[in-house]
């Protein structure tokens, strides 16, 4: 950093303070946002941080002036946070920022209108990002990362401020989404439940009233939660909503961002759709480079159990991390169904009259071709399960080891319904 004179530093600090107080008094959210947005790394903020290092007595400056002192609770810790931020001391930066944010909330609570909502968003965002980085710093120092958790409880408090009646409530969903991000990152997903409940059951929230952006995010996260719960219809509905509403064509300049969003959504939506018997087109997988699913889709189409297992093995880590592994694994039964159906079709071509009687030996042989080493008992068990799950209509005659298929629609399609559990 180039040398900065005391006067220059003083000028910049007062400039910042003036802008801050002006923004508040004129309720100018746009400029207020800029003043709070650390992570933007805007030159003005960076130079302010340098100024603060040169001019150490900024606190007195704030407290002496009638213009600045009303916001001393916000700006003093904010300056401190900025200084720490500048020097890379993120833990302290976080702590100071939280203090500042706390003061800001107190102010925000007192403001009648929701004019500063955008600024609050910035604070919520900054505090989360700062906490994540602080945790990384803590972890690298061998200490237990806990700041993100603290940020979570802080944002929960902010949520409480917004959840009341009035114009401020539209901000609640943004906070919810920030909380989701924190909880998913921390792996404390169960904490989402209370927030969701207040959003979905509270009368004061009309879901359509929220900003679209927040609605998409919200649906994405709640959809993911449903995937964990293996509640596929609900997951399908939520993720589809998110997909439909993040329309890349509406805002050309953020297309790339949207594309990322779409991929994120599809990562979960595709397994969900597969689970309810809906296969994606190949071009979709190619367009969004979701190649990890292509083999699985292929296996489903062909009834190729081996391919499915290979695909799962190949991308096991990835699927485990994203949490869709167990969902994909359950596709095995559909693959069996497909396989049986193929056998049935072949039998039908050979001898339509006996097509509905499928010998167990045949199935075992077919599986052998797929290098699936399964004995009769095992295959019998699979058949029983398929019948039990209503993937095959018919019954199994134990004595003769024959699957007797229903003459009407022996392999019913799922058609958007999940496999019977």
């Amino acid at each position, binding site marked *: 950093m180039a040398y900065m004179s005391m006067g220059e530093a003083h000028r910049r600090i007062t400039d910042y303070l003036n802008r801050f107080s002006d923004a508040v008094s004129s309720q100018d959210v746009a400029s207020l946002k800029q003043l709070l947005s650390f992570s933007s790394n805007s030159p003005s903020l960076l130079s302010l941080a340098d100024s603060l290092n040169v001019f150490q007595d900024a606190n007195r400056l704030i407290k002496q002036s009638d213009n600045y002192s009303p916001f001393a609770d916000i700006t003093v810790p904010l300056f401190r946070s900025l200084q720490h931020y500048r020097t890379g001391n993120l833990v302290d930066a976080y702590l100071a920022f939280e203090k500042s944010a706390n003061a800001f909330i107190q102010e925000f609570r007192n403001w009648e209108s929701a004019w500063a909502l955008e600024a609050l968003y910035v604070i919520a965002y900054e505090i989360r990002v700062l906490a994540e980085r602080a945790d990384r710093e803590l972890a690298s120092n061998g*200490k237990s990362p806990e700041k993100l958790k603290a940020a979570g409880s802080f944002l929960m408090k902010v949520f409480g401020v917004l959840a009341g009646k009035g114009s401020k409530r539209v901000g609640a969903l943004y906070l919810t989404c920030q909380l989701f991000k924190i909880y998913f990152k921390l*792996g404390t*997903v169960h904490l989402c439940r209370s927030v969701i409940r207040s959003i979905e059951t509270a009368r004061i929230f009309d879901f359509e009233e929220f900003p679209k952006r927040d609605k998409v995010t919200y649906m994405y996260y709640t959809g993911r939660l449903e995937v*964990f*719960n*293996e509640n596929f219809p609900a997951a399908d509905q939520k993720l589809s909503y998110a997909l439909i509403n993040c329309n890349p064509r509406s805002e050309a300049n953020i297309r790339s961002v949207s594309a990322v969003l779409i991929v994120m959504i599809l990562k979960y939506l595709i397994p969900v759709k597969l689970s309810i018997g809906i296969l994606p087109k190949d071009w979709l997988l190619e367009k969004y480079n979701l190649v990890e699913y292509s083999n699985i889709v292929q296996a489903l189409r062909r009834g190729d159990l081996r391919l499915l297992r290979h695909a799962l093995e190949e991308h096991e*880590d990835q699927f*485990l*991390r994203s*949490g869709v*592994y*167990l969902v994909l*694994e*359950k596709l*095995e*039964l559909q693959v069996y169904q497909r396989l049986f159906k193929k056998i049935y079709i072949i039998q039908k071509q050979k001898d339509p009259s006996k097509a509905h009687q499928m010998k167990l030996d045949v199935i075992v042989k077919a599986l052998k071709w797929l290098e699936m080493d399964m004995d009769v*008992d*095992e295959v*019998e*068990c*699979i*058949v*029983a*399960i398929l*019948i*039990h799950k209503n993937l095959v209509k018919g*019954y*199994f*005659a*134990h004595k003769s080891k024959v699957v*007797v298929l229903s003459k009407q629609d022996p392999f019913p399609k799922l058609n958007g319904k999940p496999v019977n559990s």
Partner: protein
Amino acid sequence: MMMNQNQQGSTQNIASSVDPNSVENRYVVDASQSQASSYFPSTTGSGAVSWATHGVNNQSTENGNLSNASYHHEQHTESHVNSLQDGLNATSLTSSSNLGTANVAQDYSGYTSYPNSSDPYAYGSTAYPGYYSSYQQQPNHSYPQPVGAYQNSGAPYQPISSFQNSGSYVGPASYSATYYNPGDYQTAGGYPSSGYSHQTTSWNEGNYTNYTSHQYSNYTSDTSGAYSSGTAPATSLQYQQQYKQWADYYSQTEVSCAPGTENLSVASTSNQVLQPPGVTAGYPTAHSQPAPIYHQSWQQDSSSSHVSSLQPAATSNGSHDSYWKHGTPSFQNRQVSPVQPHYSKPLEQKTSYNNFQDQHKAACPQGPSSQYAIGQQMAPSYQSPPVQTSPQLDNRRVSKLQIPTNPRIASNLALGLPKTDKDSSTATAAAKPAYIGVSLAKSNEKVVSHADSRVEPGTFPKSLCGYVERALARCKGDAEIAASQAVMGERWNLVKAVIIKKANSDGTLFSRDWDVEPLFPKPTTEAVTKDLPTSTPLSALSKNKRSPSRRTKSRWEPLPEEKPIDKLASSTNEIVKFSGWIHANEKDRKHISGSVSKEDRLNNIKFHLSEQKSASKSFQRPVKRQRLSADGFKTEDNGDASSDSDKEQSLTSYYSGAIALANSPEERMRRENRSKRFDRGQGNRSETNRFKAKNAGTGNLYVRRASALLISKSFDDGGSRAVEDIDWDALTVKGTCQEIEKRYLRLTSAPDPSTVRPEEVLEKALQMVQNSQKNYLYKCDQLKSIRQDLTVQRIRNQLTAKVYETHARLAIENGDLPEYNQCQSQLKILYAEGIEGCCMEFSAYHLLCVILHSNNKRELLSLMSRLSDKAKQDKAVKHALAVRAAVSSGNYIMFFRLYKTAPNLNTCLMDLYVEKMRFKAVSCMSRSYRPTVPVSYVAQVLGFTGVSPTNEECEERDSDGLEECVEWLKAHGASLVTDANGEVQLDAKASSSTLFMPEPEDAVSHGDANLAVNDFLARASSQPS
């Protein structure tokens, strides 16, 4: 804090600059500081009034002397602020900030009153100077007298000026300093300033000696422990104790204020101490030490012999105002006479104390009050019956000694501190006595008692020894006392004897001898060790009221040792309470004291009585507050200090600061050296080091733990410290128990090392459990106790893993999932730390547990994603993963095959899922199969028949399995038919609608059948091993 430090530093500097050579000068400075502080408070506080009356002279002198006053004052205020919590303040008096000052003021007022009552203004500054000068001339004499006289003059605050004037008058200066320091200490509670640290170290030592020297056997032990350890942590606890002592000191001072009553009270306290010993057998070294100290101080200060001291006193008196004269003459005369009354009464009091102690009741407040009352009564009686027998004298001496010793110690401190830590401690003690002495001066009778103390150094040691012996004898008397104690007592006696001899032969060398003395350390160390435990509990508990007596019962201490300690502690507590009480009285006295004359004594007594209740209450509070303040103080210090040793240092410094002893250059050097020792992490003084060798560092450990506790506490309070910075090593217990078998008992307090088994024993214990033929409940209990001992000692190695693994396996075998989960979570951490064990086996168990019993998809996912490639190749893990696949797809064939081929104890975990799986399978079959399924097939695929037995059905034949399968099917509502061949068939269609999961017969309301005791016992006992 910084301010304080700076101030102190400045004061020290000044002192040094003034008289680098003469320690005395420094002392003077210190005294002035302390005085100044007290003064200021007094002016602000209620005490001001009394002060004002006397004040003129004092002020003038003070002003002249105390240029430092203002800054001293600041220190005080700061300290007060810090210590607002202090017990003293709390006790009654005034607002928190004022409290500290108020206390000081009180003392002052008492002093002031003193002069008035005795010889109101005669004792003015002029008189003092003269007195002091005389002192210097006749150092020896003055010393002894000073003890009494000082206290009388006690005027310490006036003396301040006089001190400065005299300049050379080392003794007095030290006195005042010490005296004030105590006051400050109490009030400040937290003199946290770093400047103190050096002083504190010395002080601690000094205290130690004092304690030992004093009849306060309890004190000695406690303090010594803390101090000897030298670690700050110990100080925290001890700090309180010290505080108490100070309180006592105050009480003494107060006593002095109300001459008759106060003296009595003091006497009572001293008596208490003495009486407990009961037996005249040689008292532990502690006593003997004090005596030597006396000699030293005397000799050093005054070249004249001890005996001569009495005379000098007289002379000094003469030189002094009438007041002094009165004091001295009376002093001499009374020495003999007064002894008896005090003595006899003290005994009574002591007895009561003993009882009290024995009872271990928390009734401390009551005890003190009662005692106090006695003391008051005693006082009157005391005065009237002056004539006493020599033996009585000894006793009295002891009692008096407490006070006198203190003064002397104080004098020693001035000189002695530099030389020896112990000396310094004595000096502090001396300060207290000085106060008493003042009271004596006022009341001739009291003076006499003091005189006794002065009488002959040689005699004192004996008395002390006798005291010690008595104490020991008492200990023996208690049925509870273990043989070990007796041994201890013997050692003590030996040490005592040696010490006494030395004292006699070399009076002057005593101080040095003490330090060097090997024998002495031994007893002290023992005492320390004993004391330490108690002290630590105290700090840990931080509950004042609990008082040592209760704590003694805590597990920290081995049973045998407990009792003696308890007694001591209780006695100390009583004293403390007493002192607290006195404080309360003092407050009142402040106002009263000015007008109080000899005649008023009675009134004072009454007053005291009436206020006893309040006083006792206040007493309790003070202690707590003290702790708080101390903690807060600590935290502040900690903020600066990075290392534990630093913390300790700060603590010690704190104490020393409280003492506010003058810093001579040599002193400083020594202190620095000591602090360096701390830096080395030993936290031990040279003394302690010596002890170490003998004690194997147990005392040290304790101290460290205490410090760690303190730190942690401070962390809680101040929050300025990171948890990681706590020295957990210091908190760790090192077990000494050699028993292999031990019942598990959930700890409700800090662990007692004597009941904790060291690692080697634990290893044996584990083997014993593994080879044991007893039932699961027994083994579980044993393993839990092993785990506890491991945890308490923070042993985390392969043995730990082995213990947890053993327990986890045992729990799995017996279907005790909750217990297993406990072990599993610990094992997870242990493995994560890189400790070797059966990692694979247990990750398989963990997987199975999650798969089969928690059904938490997210947990399962994260668990699977964390499996290493190597783990996935492991047989057990592979098996567990296969089980997972089978369960998630409902593949019962696979499940039961895996069930039969399960490695390790996977079977046992799967066992818990078998019922569910079977039901799923049967419902699936009844839906899929038509028309029927042979039961034999069902029995085969569902694991009723086959190779592997389950726990319930061991080694059953197929026919039995078949039968069981039929029973099972029937129990679950399946409809069975017998076909033409006589084979039992499952009617699938009929069954599909009638299947149900029967209510488990052993269902319990809390949902966990494992917790049903009867069933559990039955199962556990049915286990072969």
